[in-house]
Protein backbone atom coordinates (compact mmCIF):
# COMPACT_ATOMS: atom_id res chain seq x y z
CA UNK A 1 0.00 0.00 0.00
CA UNK A 2 1.12 3.46 -0.69
CA UNK A 3 2.55 4.81 2.52
CA UNK A 4 5.21 7.12 3.86
CA UNK A 5 7.88 6.51 6.45
CA UNK A 6 8.00 8.95 9.33
CA UNK A 7 10.55 9.43 12.06
CA UNK A 8 9.55 9.07 15.71
CA UNK A 9 9.73 12.84 16.21
CA UNK A 10 7.35 13.51 13.35
CA UNK A 11 4.94 10.93 14.70
CA UNK A 12 5.01 12.47 18.16
CA UNK A 13 4.39 15.90 16.64
CA UNK A 14 1.33 14.66 14.77
CA UNK A 15 0.08 12.74 17.79
CA UNK A 16 0.32 15.74 20.09
CA UNK A 17 -1.49 17.86 17.53
CA UNK A 18 -4.33 15.34 17.34
CA UNK A 19 -4.53 15.34 21.13
CA UNK A 20 -5.17 19.09 21.00
CA UNK A 21 -7.73 18.76 18.17
CA UNK A 22 -5.43 20.65 15.83
CA UNK A 23 -3.95 18.67 13.00
CA UNK A 24 -0.88 19.38 10.91
CA UNK A 25 -2.90 21.05 8.15
CA UNK A 26 -5.02 23.06 10.59
CA UNK A 27 -8.07 20.82 10.61
CA UNK A 28 -9.96 19.56 13.62
CA UNK A 29 -10.36 15.84 14.30
CA UNK A 30 -13.72 15.55 12.52
CA UNK A 31 -12.99 17.70 9.47
CA UNK A 32 -12.56 16.48 5.95
CA UNK A 33 -10.18 18.07 3.50
CA UNK A 34 -11.77 19.94 0.64
CA UNK A 35 -13.33 17.44 -1.76
CA UNK A 36 -13.55 18.23 -5.47
CA UNK A 37 -16.16 16.27 -7.39
CA UNK A 38 -16.89 16.33 -11.09
CA UNK A 39 -19.22 13.97 -12.89
CA UNK A 40 -19.56 12.99 -16.52
CA UNK A 41 -15.87 13.22 -17.39
CA UNK A 42 -15.37 10.13 -19.56
CA UNK A 43 -17.67 10.02 -22.56
CA UNK A 44 -17.13 6.31 -23.25
CA UNK A 45 -18.94 5.36 -20.03
CA UNK A 46 -22.55 5.27 -18.86
CA UNK A 47 -21.55 7.35 -15.87
CA UNK A 48 -18.30 8.64 -14.50
CA UNK A 49 -16.91 10.82 -11.77
CA UNK A 50 -13.62 12.19 -10.68
CA UNK A 51 -12.93 12.97 -7.06
CA UNK A 52 -9.95 14.78 -5.60
CA UNK A 53 -9.48 14.69 -1.85
CA UNK A 54 -6.26 16.45 -0.98
CA UNK A 55 -3.69 14.61 -3.05
CA UNK A 56 -5.89 11.57 -3.48
CA UNK A 57 -7.18 11.43 -7.01
CA UNK A 58 -9.82 8.94 -8.12
CA UNK A 59 -11.55 8.38 -11.43
CA UNK A 60 -14.55 6.08 -11.54
CA UNK A 61 -16.28 4.88 -14.67
CA UNK A 62 -19.53 2.93 -14.72
CA UNK A 63 -20.32 0.88 -17.78
CA UNK A 64 -23.64 -0.84 -18.26
CA UNK A 65 -23.44 -4.05 -20.22
CA UNK A 66 -26.00 -6.71 -20.95
CA UNK A 67 -25.55 -9.96 -19.04
CA UNK A 68 -27.43 -12.85 -17.53
CA UNK A 69 -28.79 -12.60 -13.98
CA UNK A 70 -27.19 -14.67 -11.26
CA UNK A 71 -28.82 -18.01 -10.63
CA UNK A 72 -29.92 -17.27 -7.08
CA UNK A 73 -31.31 -13.84 -8.01
CA UNK A 74 -33.12 -14.33 -11.30
CA UNK A 75 -34.91 -10.98 -11.42
CA UNK A 76 -32.11 -8.64 -10.45
CA UNK A 77 -29.11 -7.17 -12.16
CA UNK A 78 -25.82 -6.86 -10.36
CA UNK A 79 -22.79 -4.68 -9.82
CA UNK A 80 -19.22 -5.66 -10.51
CA UNK A 81 -16.39 -3.75 -8.89
CA UNK A 82 -12.86 -3.51 -10.16
CA UNK A 83 -10.12 -1.33 -8.75
CA UNK A 84 -7.06 -0.55 -10.82
CA UNK A 85 -4.14 1.05 -9.06
CA UNK A 86 -2.31 3.01 -11.70
CA UNK A 87 1.47 2.99 -11.66
CA UNK A 88 1.23 6.77 -11.96
CA UNK A 89 0.19 6.81 -8.28
CA UNK A 90 3.35 5.10 -7.08
CA UNK A 91 5.92 2.94 -8.90
CA UNK A 92 5.11 0.12 -6.47
CA UNK A 93 1.93 -0.45 -8.42
CA UNK A 94 3.78 -1.29 -11.62
CA UNK A 95 2.90 -4.60 -13.20
CA UNK A 96 0.92 -6.66 -10.73
CA UNK A 97 2.05 -4.64 -7.73
CA UNK A 98 -1.27 -2.85 -7.35
CA UNK A 99 -3.39 -5.96 -7.50
CA UNK A 100 -3.36 -6.74 -3.81
CA UNK A 101 -4.59 -3.30 -2.81
CA UNK A 102 -7.02 -3.34 -5.71
CA UNK A 103 -8.65 -6.58 -4.61
CA UNK A 104 -8.81 -5.37 -1.02
CA UNK A 105 -10.66 -2.22 -2.04
CA UNK A 106 -12.91 -4.07 -4.46
CA UNK A 107 -13.84 -6.59 -1.76
CA UNK A 108 -14.68 -3.75 0.60
CA UNK A 109 -16.89 -2.20 -2.07
CA UNK A 110 -18.69 -5.51 -2.57
CA UNK A 111 -19.17 -5.65 1.17
CA UNK A 112 -20.68 -2.18 1.54
CA UNK A 113 -23.11 -2.83 -1.30
CA UNK A 114 -23.96 -6.25 0.09
CA UNK A 115 -27.51 -5.43 1.20
CA UNK A 116 -30.92 -5.00 -0.33
CA UNK A 117 -31.44 -1.30 0.11
CA UNK A 118 -28.29 0.32 -1.33
CA UNK A 119 -29.29 0.11 -4.96
CA UNK A 120 -32.55 -1.10 -6.45
CA UNK A 121 -31.17 -4.03 -8.38
CA UNK A 122 -34.60 -5.07 -9.64
CA UNK A 123 -34.52 -1.98 -11.84
CA UNK A 124 -31.60 -3.49 -13.70
CA UNK A 125 -33.51 -6.58 -14.71
CA UNK A 126 -34.61 -6.69 -18.32
CA UNK A 127 -35.89 -10.17 -18.70
CA UNK A 128 -36.05 -12.45 -15.63
CA UNK A 129 -33.54 -15.31 -15.79
CA UNK A 130 -32.32 -14.21 -19.19
CA UNK A 131 -31.13 -10.65 -19.46
CA UNK A 132 -30.16 -7.96 -17.04
CA UNK A 133 -27.88 -4.98 -16.86
CA UNK A 134 -24.52 -5.55 -15.28
CA UNK A 135 -23.00 -2.35 -13.96
CA UNK A 136 -19.23 -2.53 -14.12
CA UNK A 137 -17.97 -0.02 -11.60
CA UNK A 138 -14.31 0.48 -12.45
CA UNK A 139 -12.23 2.54 -10.09
CA UNK A 140 -8.94 4.00 -11.25
CA UNK A 141 -6.58 5.20 -8.59
CA UNK A 142 -4.52 8.02 -10.05
CA UNK A 143 -2.83 9.39 -6.96
CA UNK A 144 -2.63 8.32 -3.32
CA UNK A 145 -2.75 10.97 -0.65
CA UNK A 146 -4.34 9.07 2.20
CA UNK A 147 -7.89 8.06 2.93
CA UNK A 148 -8.41 6.07 -0.25
CA UNK A 149 -11.53 4.29 0.92
CA UNK A 150 -13.57 7.41 1.65
CA UNK A 151 -12.56 9.09 -1.58
CA UNK A 152 -13.37 6.00 -3.61
CA UNK A 153 -16.78 5.57 -2.02
CA UNK A 154 -17.63 9.22 -2.72
CA UNK A 155 -16.49 8.81 -6.31
CA UNK A 156 -18.51 5.62 -6.71
CA UNK A 157 -21.63 7.31 -5.39
CA UNK A 158 -21.14 10.30 -7.70
CA UNK A 159 -20.56 8.03 -10.69
CA UNK A 160 -23.67 5.97 -9.92
CA UNK A 161 -25.63 9.21 -9.61
CA UNK A 162 -24.37 10.20 -13.04
CA UNK A 163 -25.11 6.79 -14.60
CA UNK A 164 -27.66 6.67 -17.37
CA UNK A 165 -28.72 3.27 -18.58
CA UNK A 166 -30.47 3.17 -21.96
CA UNK A 167 -34.08 2.05 -21.83
CA UNK A 168 -34.88 -1.17 -23.60
CA UNK A 169 -38.09 -2.88 -24.50
CA UNK A 170 -38.67 -6.59 -24.66
CA UNK A 171 -40.61 -7.62 -27.73
CA UNK A 172 -42.40 -10.93 -27.48
CA UNK A 173 -42.25 -12.70 -30.79
CA UNK A 174 -42.76 -16.24 -31.82
CA UNK A 175 -39.47 -18.04 -31.67
CA UNK A 176 -38.20 -16.02 -28.73
CA UNK A 177 -37.92 -12.59 -27.28
CA UNK A 178 -36.09 -9.71 -28.77
CA UNK A 179 -34.64 -6.74 -27.03
CA UNK A 180 -35.06 -3.39 -28.65
CA UNK A 181 -33.04 -0.35 -27.72
CA UNK A 182 -34.88 2.92 -27.43
CA UNK A 183 -34.22 5.31 -30.32
CA UNK A 184 -34.04 8.37 -28.14
CA UNK A 185 -30.60 8.57 -26.50
CA UNK A 186 -32.04 10.70 -23.69
CA UNK A 187 -34.62 8.05 -22.82
CA UNK A 188 -32.79 6.34 -20.01
CA UNK A 189 -32.99 4.95 -16.49
CA UNK A 190 -31.40 6.86 -13.65
CA UNK A 191 -30.43 5.12 -10.44
CA UNK A 192 -31.69 6.22 -7.09
CA UNK A 193 -28.57 6.79 -5.01
CA UNK A 194 -30.23 8.03 -1.82
CA UNK A 195 -29.28 4.86 0.03
CA UNK A 196 -25.85 4.36 -1.48
CA UNK A 197 -23.47 4.33 1.47
CA UNK A 198 -20.23 6.23 1.82
CA UNK A 199 -17.25 4.96 3.75
CA UNK A 200 -15.95 6.90 6.72
CA UNK A 201 -12.56 5.74 7.93
CA UNK A 202 -11.73 6.66 11.50
CA UNK A 203 -8.09 6.33 12.39
CA UNK A 204 -7.05 5.95 15.98
CA UNK A 205 -4.15 8.20 16.83
CA UNK A 206 -3.10 8.28 20.46
CA UNK A 207 -6.27 8.38 22.51
CA UNK A 208 -8.36 10.13 19.89
CA UNK A 209 -9.69 9.24 16.50
CA UNK A 210 -9.67 11.35 13.35
CA UNK A 211 -11.49 11.25 10.04
CA UNK A 212 -9.88 11.69 6.64
CA UNK A 213 -6.29 10.91 7.62
CA UNK A 214 -3.50 12.05 5.35
CA UNK A 215 -0.67 9.67 4.46
CA UNK A 216 1.39 11.06 7.34
CA UNK A 217 -1.42 10.55 9.79
CA UNK A 218 -2.05 7.06 8.47
CA UNK A 219 1.55 6.25 9.29
CA UNK A 220 0.88 7.22 12.93
CA UNK A 221 -2.25 5.17 13.26
CA UNK A 222 -2.05 1.53 14.23
CA UNK A 223 -5.66 0.65 13.69
CA UNK A 224 -8.64 2.26 12.05
CA UNK A 225 -12.30 1.50 11.90
CA UNK A 226 -13.93 1.63 8.52
CA UNK A 227 -17.68 2.05 8.53
CA UNK A 228 -20.04 2.64 5.66
CA UNK A 229 -22.92 4.96 6.44
CA UNK A 230 -26.00 5.78 4.42
CA UNK A 231 -27.48 9.26 4.27
CA UNK A 232 -29.95 8.28 7.00
CA UNK A 233 -27.17 7.24 9.32
CA UNK A 234 -27.59 3.48 9.10
CA UNK A 235 -24.51 1.34 8.89
CA UNK A 236 -24.07 -1.22 6.14
CA UNK A 237 -20.55 -2.38 6.89
CA UNK A 238 -17.95 -2.14 9.59
CA UNK A 239 -14.44 -3.37 9.51
CA UNK A 240 -11.29 -2.96 11.50
CA UNK A 241 -8.24 -2.33 9.35
CA UNK A 242 -4.62 -2.10 10.32
CA UNK A 243 -2.25 -4.06 12.47
CA UNK A 244 -3.26 -2.82 15.89
CA UNK A 245 -6.20 -3.44 18.14
CA UNK A 246 -8.92 -1.14 19.45
CA UNK A 247 -10.49 -0.57 22.80
CA UNK A 248 -14.20 -1.60 22.84
CA UNK A 249 -15.25 1.77 24.25
CA UNK A 250 -13.43 3.67 21.52
CA UNK A 251 -15.16 1.53 18.91
CA UNK A 252 -18.54 2.75 20.10
CA UNK A 253 -17.34 6.34 20.13
CA UNK A 254 -15.93 5.94 16.64
CA UNK A 255 -19.22 4.53 15.40
CA UNK A 256 -21.07 7.55 16.73
CA UNK A 257 -18.60 9.97 15.17
CA UNK A 258 -18.72 8.05 11.92
CA UNK A 259 -22.49 8.32 11.73
CA UNK A 260 -22.43 12.03 12.47
CA UNK A 261 -19.67 12.79 9.97
CA UNK A 262 -21.13 10.44 7.39
CA UNK A 263 -24.50 12.17 7.40
CA UNK A 264 -22.81 15.50 6.84
CA UNK A 265 -20.69 14.07 4.04
CA UNK A 266 -23.75 12.68 2.30
CA UNK A 267 -25.75 15.89 2.51
CA UNK A 268 -22.93 18.05 1.16
CA UNK A 269 -22.17 15.57 -1.61
CA UNK A 270 -25.82 15.48 -2.63
CA UNK A 271 -26.00 19.29 -2.73
CA UNK A 272 -22.96 19.47 -4.97
CA UNK A 273 -24.27 16.76 -7.28
CA UNK A 274 -27.67 18.46 -7.56
CA UNK A 275 -26.07 21.81 -8.28
CA UNK A 276 -23.93 20.31 -11.00
CA UNK A 277 -26.97 18.57 -12.44
CA UNK A 278 -28.85 21.87 -12.60
CA UNK A 279 -26.15 23.49 -14.69
CA UNK A 280 -26.82 20.84 -17.32
CA UNK A 281 -24.92 21.13 -20.57
CA UNK A 282 -24.01 24.74 -19.85
CA UNK A 283 -21.49 23.49 -17.30
CA UNK A 284 -17.88 24.15 -18.13
CA UNK A 285 -16.09 20.87 -17.87
CA UNK A 286 -12.77 20.72 -16.11
CA UNK A 287 -11.93 17.17 -17.14
CA UNK A 288 -8.66 15.38 -16.37
CA UNK A 289 -6.43 18.31 -17.13
CA UNK A 290 -7.85 20.56 -14.43
Amino acid at each position, binding site marked *: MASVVLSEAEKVYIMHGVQEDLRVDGRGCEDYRCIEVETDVVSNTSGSARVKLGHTDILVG*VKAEMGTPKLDRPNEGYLEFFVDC*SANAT*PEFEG*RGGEELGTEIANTLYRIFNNESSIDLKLLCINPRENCWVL*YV*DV*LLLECGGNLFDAISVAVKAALFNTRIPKVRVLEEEGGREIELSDDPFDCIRLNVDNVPCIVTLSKIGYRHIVDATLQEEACSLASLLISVTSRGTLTCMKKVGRGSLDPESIFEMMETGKRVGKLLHSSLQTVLDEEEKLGSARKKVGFLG
Partner: protein
Amino acid sequence: MRGSRSKALHDQALVNCQYSMATFSTGDRKRRPHGDRQSSEMTLHLKQTFEAAILTQLYPRSQIDIYVQILQADGGNYCASVNAATLAVIDAGIPMRDYVCACSAGFIEETPLADLNYVEEVTGGPQLALALLPKSDQIALLEMNARLHEDHLERIIEAASKACKDVYAVLDQVVREHLQEVTALLGK
Protein backbone atom coordinates in the same frame (compact mmCIF):
# COMPACT_ATOMS: atom_id res chain seq x y z
CA MET B 1 17.31 1.30 -9.49
CA ARG B 2 14.21 -0.36 -8.17
CA GLY B 3 13.62 -4.05 -8.16
CA SER B 4 16.35 -6.42 -9.22
CA ARG B 5 19.71 -4.78 -9.79
CA SER B 6 20.56 -7.28 -12.45
CA LYS B 7 18.57 -5.26 -14.94
CA ALA B 8 20.80 -2.21 -14.45
CA LEU B 9 22.96 -1.24 -17.39
CA HIS B 10 26.49 -0.20 -16.54
CA ASP B 11 26.88 2.38 -19.29
CA GLN B 12 23.43 3.91 -19.64
CA ALA B 13 20.06 4.40 -17.96
CA LEU B 14 17.34 1.82 -18.27
CA VAL B 15 14.12 3.19 -19.71
CA ASN B 16 11.20 1.38 -18.15
CA CYS B 17 7.70 1.95 -19.53
CA GLN B 18 4.26 0.78 -18.66
CA TYR B 19 1.29 1.45 -20.87
CA SER B 20 -2.02 0.93 -19.18
CA MET B 21 -5.56 1.58 -20.35
CA ALA B 22 -8.39 2.25 -17.92
CA THR B 23 -10.96 -0.52 -18.20
CA PHE B 24 -13.63 2.03 -19.07
CA SER B 25 -11.54 3.99 -21.57
CA THR B 26 -12.75 2.14 -24.66
CA GLY B 27 -16.21 1.54 -26.08
CA ASP B 28 -16.28 -2.07 -24.92
CA ARG B 29 -15.12 -2.67 -21.39
CA LYS B 30 -11.57 -3.95 -21.20
CA ARG B 31 -11.04 -6.91 -18.90
CA ARG B 32 -7.60 -5.89 -17.69
CA PRO B 33 -5.84 -2.55 -17.73
CA HIS B 34 -2.42 -3.84 -18.70
CA GLY B 35 -0.54 -7.01 -19.34
CA ASP B 36 -2.52 -8.04 -22.40
CA ARG B 37 -0.90 -8.42 -25.81
CA GLN B 38 -1.85 -5.00 -27.09
CA SER B 39 -0.60 -3.15 -24.01
CA SER B 40 2.64 -5.10 -23.92
CA GLU B 41 3.29 -4.21 -27.54
CA MET B 42 2.57 -0.57 -26.85
CA THR B 43 4.87 -0.66 -23.82
CA LEU B 44 7.65 -1.98 -26.00
CA HIS B 45 7.08 0.71 -28.63
CA LEU B 46 7.17 3.47 -26.05
CA LYS B 47 10.36 2.06 -24.59
CA GLN B 48 12.03 1.96 -27.98
CA THR B 49 10.89 5.46 -28.83
CA PHE B 50 12.25 7.00 -25.66
CA GLU B 51 15.47 5.03 -25.68
CA ALA B 52 16.11 6.76 -28.97
CA ALA B 53 15.37 10.22 -27.62
CA ILE B 54 16.64 10.34 -24.04
CA LEU B 55 20.36 10.84 -23.50
CA THR B 56 20.57 7.61 -21.54
CA GLN B 57 24.35 7.49 -21.43
CA LEU B 58 24.33 10.38 -18.95
CA TYR B 59 22.80 8.23 -16.23
CA PRO B 60 24.57 4.90 -16.01
CA ARG B 61 23.17 2.34 -13.57
CA SER B 62 19.89 4.24 -13.18
CA GLN B 63 16.34 3.73 -14.22
CA ILE B 64 13.81 6.09 -15.76
CA ASP B 65 10.20 5.04 -15.33
CA ILE B 66 7.61 6.26 -17.81
CA TYR B 67 4.08 5.29 -16.89
CA VAL B 68 1.34 6.06 -19.36
CA GLN B 69 -2.29 5.78 -18.35
CA ILE B 70 -5.01 6.08 -20.97
CA LEU B 71 -8.17 7.50 -19.43
CA GLN B 72 -10.25 7.79 -22.55
CA ALA B 73 -9.39 6.33 -25.93
CA ASP B 74 -10.42 7.89 -29.20
CA GLY B 75 -7.76 6.73 -31.63
CA GLY B 76 -4.10 7.64 -31.82
CA ASN B 77 -3.31 6.20 -28.40
CA TYR B 78 0.33 5.65 -29.17
CA CYS B 79 0.80 9.15 -30.50
CA ALA B 80 -0.95 10.85 -27.60
CA SER B 81 1.11 8.74 -25.18
CA VAL B 82 4.37 9.74 -26.82
CA ASN B 83 3.49 13.43 -26.88
CA ALA B 84 2.38 13.39 -23.25
CA ALA B 85 5.41 11.40 -22.15
CA THR B 86 7.72 13.85 -23.96
CA LEU B 87 6.26 16.71 -21.97
CA ALA B 88 6.58 14.70 -18.76
CA VAL B 89 10.21 13.84 -19.45
CA ILE B 90 10.95 17.50 -20.17
CA ASP B 91 9.13 18.50 -16.99
CA ALA B 92 11.28 16.02 -15.07
CA GLY B 93 14.36 17.77 -16.44
CA ILE B 94 15.77 14.70 -18.15
CA PRO B 95 17.98 15.68 -21.07
CA MET B 96 16.75 14.57 -24.49
CA ARG B 97 18.18 14.86 -27.96
CA ASP B 98 15.01 16.59 -29.07
CA TYR B 99 11.30 16.54 -28.46
CA VAL B 100 9.66 13.34 -29.66
CA CYS B 101 6.47 14.13 -31.52
CA ALA B 102 4.21 11.45 -32.80
CA CYS B 103 1.26 11.33 -35.12
CA SER B 104 -0.69 8.65 -36.88
CA ALA B 105 -1.77 8.71 -40.50
CA GLY B 106 -4.04 6.69 -42.71
CA PHE B 107 -4.99 6.43 -46.32
CA ILE B 108 -8.62 6.41 -47.30
CA GLU B 109 -9.85 6.83 -50.87
CA GLU B 110 -6.59 8.07 -52.31
CA THR B 111 -6.27 10.72 -49.60
CA PRO B 112 -3.73 10.63 -46.81
CA LEU B 113 -5.28 11.45 -43.43
CA ALA B 114 -3.29 12.63 -40.43
CA ASP B 115 -4.29 11.84 -36.84
CA LEU B 116 -6.94 9.14 -37.19
CA ASN B 117 -9.75 9.06 -34.69
CA TYR B 118 -11.35 5.89 -33.36
CA VAL B 119 -13.92 5.55 -36.12
CA GLU B 120 -11.31 6.03 -38.83
CA GLU B 121 -9.07 3.50 -37.13
CA VAL B 122 -11.65 0.75 -36.97
CA THR B 123 -12.77 1.13 -40.59
CA GLY B 124 -9.61 -0.71 -41.57
CA GLY B 125 -7.20 0.43 -44.21
CA PRO B 126 -3.54 1.20 -43.76
CA GLN B 127 -2.40 2.84 -40.55
CA LEU B 128 0.91 4.39 -39.89
CA ALA B 129 2.39 5.64 -36.64
CA LEU B 130 5.37 7.93 -36.81
CA ALA B 131 7.48 9.29 -33.97
CA LEU B 132 9.78 12.03 -35.11
CA LEU B 133 12.64 14.02 -33.63
CA PRO B 134 11.56 17.15 -35.52
CA LYS B 135 14.68 19.30 -35.42
CA SER B 136 16.96 16.72 -36.92
CA ASP B 137 14.18 15.09 -38.92
CA GLN B 138 15.10 11.73 -37.50
CA ILE B 139 12.59 8.96 -37.13
CA ALA B 140 12.40 7.41 -33.66
CA LEU B 141 9.74 4.89 -34.55
CA LEU B 142 7.83 4.11 -37.70
CA GLU B 143 5.24 1.42 -37.84
CA MET B 144 2.71 0.53 -40.47
CA ASN B 145 0.17 -2.22 -40.78
CA ALA B 146 -2.20 -3.38 -43.51
CA ARG B 147 -1.47 -3.24 -47.21
CA LEU B 148 -0.49 -0.11 -49.11
CA HIS B 149 0.95 0.50 -52.52
CA GLU B 150 4.53 1.61 -52.39
CA ASP B 151 3.78 4.74 -54.45
CA HIS B 152 1.52 6.12 -51.72
CA LEU B 153 3.91 5.52 -48.84
CA GLU B 154 5.81 8.73 -49.34
CA ARG B 155 2.65 10.83 -49.30
CA ILE B 156 1.48 9.28 -46.04
CA ILE B 157 4.83 9.75 -44.35
CA GLU B 158 4.78 13.29 -45.64
CA ALA B 159 1.36 13.89 -44.06
CA ALA B 160 2.40 12.28 -40.78
CA SER B 161 5.66 14.18 -40.49
CA LYS B 162 3.95 17.45 -41.24
CA ALA B 163 1.48 16.71 -38.46
CA CYS B 164 4.37 15.81 -36.15
CA LYS B 165 5.98 19.15 -36.81
CA ASP B 166 2.69 20.90 -36.07
CA VAL B 167 2.53 18.99 -32.80
CA TYR B 168 6.09 20.05 -32.11
CA ALA B 169 5.14 23.71 -32.50
CA VAL B 170 2.34 23.33 -29.96
CA LEU B 171 4.45 21.35 -27.49
CA ASP B 172 7.33 23.81 -27.73
CA GLN B 173 5.02 26.74 -27.11
CA VAL B 174 3.48 25.05 -24.07
CA VAL B 175 6.87 24.20 -22.62
CA ARG B 176 8.13 27.73 -23.07
CA GLU B 177 5.00 29.28 -21.57
CA HIS B 178 5.14 26.91 -18.62
CA LEU B 179 8.80 27.65 -18.05
CA GLN B 180 8.18 31.39 -18.12
CA GLU B 181 5.38 31.00 -15.62
CA VAL B 182 7.49 28.90 -13.28
CA THR B 183 10.53 31.15 -13.45
CA ALA B 184 8.35 34.21 -12.87
CA LEU B 185 6.97 32.58 -9.74
CA LEU B 186 10.45 31.71 -8.55
CA GLY B 187 11.64 35.26 -9.24
CA LYS B 188 9.21 36.73 -6.74
